[in-house]
Every structure is written in structure tokens, then in C-alpha cells.
């Protein structure tokens, strides 16, 4: 059996590990132009803010893949011939496969600007982007960060830590409009307003960038201009799957998959940021481009790829939005449905605890559908479990809410992985 895994980051690496575990004798070929380096892309923000030394980011990938017996091809996939079961690489080589995993992730959403400076906009996705930004960082200089999501947040923090003044330009009326509720969004906005070196500009977009001396001159939608040394955009991501478009898989914003994570093309599975899997809360395919989803999908896809005959691997329960980021000395966390755009008509249970911690549980039709909080991380894990298992709010004992620090966990001894355990 020959498995080909295209894309070797969070999803692809997880799949390689589980393919090997499920099928010790199989042949695994990993395809990725950046196959030689092993790192986790979210950590680039920890390097930018100086918390992690640059040399600690990237390791040589050879021991990892050798240990798993994965044969590496440092090339990009450019086409898929599903009838002949061949993957076509940019080197011109064709690779035969029995089962293939598409784990090519996502690319930063490009900002469309007028002007000759448009190509100078940086993005923040991988080690090459980090290097490009670091080359432009100038202590005492001015940077514009476009986008008030989590990546915009991390960029702002990092650039300020590097001594730059940051203009954080957000299209929405408040930062984190999509990620958290109004309370936490406003809290974060207020912290940014107090923060030295940050100028938060809400309801603002950039329309034009022109080269201006050593830097750039940005024109905003109200006609005003800003001169900056560096522009970095964090405006979300776009799934990357153009290379297999010819094979005709069903797609929406990302690759669509069934509950075994197979695309509509026979024997072609998909996992990670490239996939638009069914969202547990919204009950329809949605992009939830986060690390834990990618790793879990890599595992579930691998176990289904390796399942023999009529046997099937575990069903994929669905993806979920969740995030935790350390910020302003606390953790800001969210899970499930918290965006005020979707939570209209929902009920809320809000608890504030000592030292400014905050927890807001979102309930729809008696079922927990989301939670958002500040410095309440461990309890958010239980609530994430509650969201995944569609727990009824009536199952949350009053004393849990009264004293979340000391209550026994909501999940008790229920195993979380029902049915997904293999050969432990």
C-alpha cells in the first residue's frame, strides 16, 4: 500500500504518524517543497516578540521523518490525475498512489491595494515571512498592521516588543470582531488604547500604498495618509487546493469532505486548513483553520485511509472554532459560537471571578454552543467538551458556576474519544 501525503505541516505530519501506527509495513511518501524544515508556524509570533530565540524555531526534519519511515520529496504538487492515480510534481515527476492526503493548508488572504507599494505588503504565515518582516523592523520606526484578528494582535505585540510604533488598522468598529464577544473585544481594544506605542484605528481600511523614500505612504479610505516603514497584513487565510482542481473535487471555500474526511474524488482524503469540514456548532461546512483541528483531521483521515476492506476508521465528529492566546498578562480564550453576529437570540450565562477573570457561556435551545473568557483557560477546555458533546445547560450544576475553580470537571470520567482509540 502506498500512501502519499501532500503538505507536511500540522495535518500532514499527524497523518504520517498515524499511518505508520496503523500500518507498520506501508509505504509513505511525503511531498512538500519545505519538507526539510520542521517547525510550528504559530511560533513565529513568539520569535517576533522575542520570547523564543530565532534558532529555536526550526529543526531539521530528517530524524522525524526517518523515524517514521517516510520518504520525502521536496517538491510542490501541481496536478492530480485521479483516473490514473498519479500525483504530478513541479519537477515533472509523477507519483503513483493508492490513497492520497491533501494537506496543503492555507495561504494568507492578500490585500488588494492600488499603487506601486502594494507588493511591499508583508504577510505572517511562515519562516520566510518572519525573515522578511525582521529585515524591515526598525527600532523607533512605524509599522502598520492591517487586520484586527488574532494574527493582527500577535503582530502588534511583536512589533511593539521590537521597538516599533504600530498603527493597528481594523476595518471593523472593534478589534477581534470575529473571535470574541463584545465584552472581551472592547476589553482588548481598551488595553491597546492604553498601550504605549500602539495607535488603534478602528473602522479604517487602506486603499493605496505608494513607495515613499525608504518606506511606504498609505492612503486610507477617508483620504488621509500615513507614512510607515513596514506594512504587515493579517486578514485571514484562504485554503490552498488549486493543484488538485483538475481532478474535480467538490469545493466551496475549501475542500469539501465526507465524515471519513474523503473528498468527492475516490481515495483522495483531505485534512487541515485546506478543508472546509462540517462545524459541530453551526452544523454546516465552515473554515476553522486552527492547529488542533488540523492535527485531529490528520489522524482521522490517516486511520480511514489505512482501514482495510469493509472496516472503517473513526468518523470525524466535526470541526470547532477555538483559540487561546496569552495577551496583556492573561489568556484570552474562545470556543464555538461567540461571534455576536451569530449569537443573537441566544441566552448567556456570565460569571466574573476574582482578579478580572471573565467567563461567558452561550446557550441556544438549552444547549451550550460557545464560551469565551479571560484567564479562565482550564475551564474553557471543559466547555469545549460541552460544546462538542452538545451538553445541555441543565447538566451544569449551579455550584460549578458559583465556584468554577473548585468544582469537579463537567466531563467527569466520560472518555472523550469514544470509539477513536486504536492499538494503544
Amino acid at each position, binding site marked *: 500500500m502506498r500512501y502519499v501525503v501532500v503538505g507536511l505541516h*500540522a495535518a500532514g505530519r*499527524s497523518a504520517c504518524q498515524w499511518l505508520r501506527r496503523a500500518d507498520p509495513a506501508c509505504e509513505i511518501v511525503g511531498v512538500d517543497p519545505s519538507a526539510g524544515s520542521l517547525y*510550528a508556524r*504559530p*511560533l513565529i509570533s*513568539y520569535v517576533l516578540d522575542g*520570547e*523564543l530565540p530565532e534558532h529555536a524555531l526550526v529543526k531539521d526534519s530528517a530524524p522525524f521523518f526517518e523515524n517514521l519511515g517516510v520518504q520525502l520529496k521536496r517538491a510542490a504538487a501541481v496536478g492530480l490525475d485521479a483516473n490514473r492515480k498519479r500525483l504530478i510534481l513541479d519537477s515533472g515527476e509523477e507519483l503513483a498512489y493508492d490513497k492520497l492526503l491533501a494537506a496543503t493548508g492555507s495561504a494568507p488572504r492578500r490585500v488588494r491595494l492600488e499603487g506601486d507599494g502594494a507588493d511591499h505588503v508583508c504577510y505572517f504565515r511562515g519562516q520566510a515571512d518572519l525573515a522578511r518582516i525582521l529585515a524591515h523592523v526598525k527600532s523607533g520606526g512605524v509599522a502598520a498592521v492591517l487586520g484586527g484578528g488574532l494574527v493582527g494582535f500577535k503582530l502588534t505585540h511583536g512589533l511593539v516588543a521590537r521597538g516599533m510604533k504600530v498603527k493597528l488598522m481594523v476595518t471593523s468598529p472593534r478589534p477581534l470582531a470575529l473571535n470574541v464577544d463584545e465584552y472581551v473585544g472592547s476589553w482588548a481594544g481598551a488595553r491597546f488604547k492604553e498601550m504605549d506605542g500602539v495607535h488603534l484605528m478602528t473602522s479604517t481600511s487602506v486603499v493605496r500604498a505608494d513607495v515613499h523614500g525608504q518606506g511606504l505612504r498609505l492612503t486610507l479610505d477617508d483620504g488621509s495618509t500615513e507614512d510607515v516603514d513596514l506594512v504587515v497584513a493579517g486578514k485571514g487565510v484562504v485554503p490552498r487546493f488549486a493543484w488538485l482542481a483538475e481532478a474535480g473535487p467538490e469545493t466551496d471555500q475549501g475542500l469539501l469532505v465526507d465524515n471519513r474526511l474523503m473528498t468527492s474524488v475516490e481515495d483522495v482524503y483531505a485534512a487541515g486548513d485546506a478543508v472546509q469540514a462540517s462545524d459541530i456548532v453551526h452544523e454546516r461546512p465552515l473554515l476553522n483553520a486552527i*492547529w*488542533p483541528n488540523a*492535527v*485531529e483531521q490528520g*489522524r482521522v483521515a490517516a486511520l480511514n485511509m489505512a482501514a482495510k476492506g469493509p472496516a472503517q476508521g473513526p468518523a470525524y465528529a466535526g470541526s470547532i472554532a*477555538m*483559540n*487561546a*492566546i*496569552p495577551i496583556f498578562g492573561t*489568556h484570552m*480564550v474562545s*470556543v464555538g459560537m461567540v461571534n455576536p453576529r451569530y449569537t443573537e437570540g441566544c441566552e448567556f450565562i456570565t460569571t466574573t471571578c476574582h482578579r478580572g477573570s471573565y467567563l461567558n457561556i452561550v446557550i441556544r435551545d438549552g444547549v451550550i454552543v460557545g464560551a469565551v473568557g479571560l484567564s479562565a*483557560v*482550564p*475551564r*474553557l*477546555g*471543559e466547555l*469545549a*467538551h460541552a460544546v462538542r458533546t452538545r451538553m445541555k445547560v441543565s*447538566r451544569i*450544576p449551579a*455550584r*460549578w458556576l458559583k*465556584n468554577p475553580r*473548585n*468544582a*469537579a*470537571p*463537567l*466531563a*467527569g*470520567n*466520560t*472518555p*472523550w*474519544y469514544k470509539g*477513536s*482509540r486504536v492499538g*494503544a
Partner: protein
Amino acid sequence: MQHKTVIVRPELCVGCMQCAIRCAQAHSATKELATAVFEPVLAKPRIHIGVGVNPQGVLKPFPNKCRHCDPAPCQEACMPGAIRSDIAEGSKVVDPALCIGCGMCAMACPYYAIRYHHDLHAPERTITAIKCDNCHDRQKKGQIPACVEACKTGALEFGYVNEHIKKGAGRLANAAWSMQS
């Protein structure tokens, strides 16, 4: 392969908290209670006594710790790969040198088994993830996990899950599964 693990029987717990104290002691620098409490970075317990309610509505202590799941959701969420399976077989162990304290693992853990504290093994970081490591250091020396050694009521046992289930499947299932916070 089966590994010995800490088996929790909440119905036998009286909430004395000896397990938590001995756990912190075992994870301190000096390993002695009298000196551990004066260490500059205070060791923290990795087992916690929560308050649960039994099916009769009576408040009951609930010893809560990492279950070392496999596959483990915390490990799948850990971006720097700090939750390792290769330090002690059968255990998921946080490598403080790799942990960045981002919070993703606790978000993924349904059991409230991961906390964040200043850790003596990563003094340069303000916080790292702290959770049960099955006392793999002690086990190497032929000792059993500190919490089990401390437990006088049999609420914590060290053994094979399968054998334990054989001993009293019904007893265990009833006690463990009907527990709510």
C-alpha cells in the same frame, strides 16, 4: 502494551488532600516537605480535589488528574510539541523547555487537568503548562506515584486498568460514570 497507571475511585475519596500535598512535594526541587515549602519557585500539585455531586445529590470530593488519554487532545493541540509521549512510555509528559504557555492544551482538555504556573524547570518563563507526569522519575527508581503512596483510603491505586476492571467492572463503572461536578 499495557502500562500501569493511577486508577481513581472517587467513591472512596474523603478529600483529605494528602495526594495533592505529596504530589507537589514529589515535584519540588528538594523533594522534602519541610524544605519544599520554602523553595523560591513553589512546586504545584498536579492532582486536584474538586467538589462533585453524587447521584443522590450529596457533595463529594472528586480526585481529578490527567488521564493520559490516547490519542490525547492536549497533545494534538500542542503547537511546539511540548507534550511528549517519548519521555515515559504510556504517559503524556510536558517538556517545560518546549512549552510556550499558550493555553491551547488546556482548551483541548475536557478534564480541567492542566494548569499554568511558574515552573522550577523553566524558571525563565512566567508560566508553563503543569499536569500529571505519572511520576515517571519515581517509577524509574521503583517507587509508585506519590499521590498513590499518600492515599490511605484506596481512592487512588496504581495498577493495570484491565485487571482493575476485571476485579469489579460494575463497581467501578457505577462509581466513576455517574459522578458529576
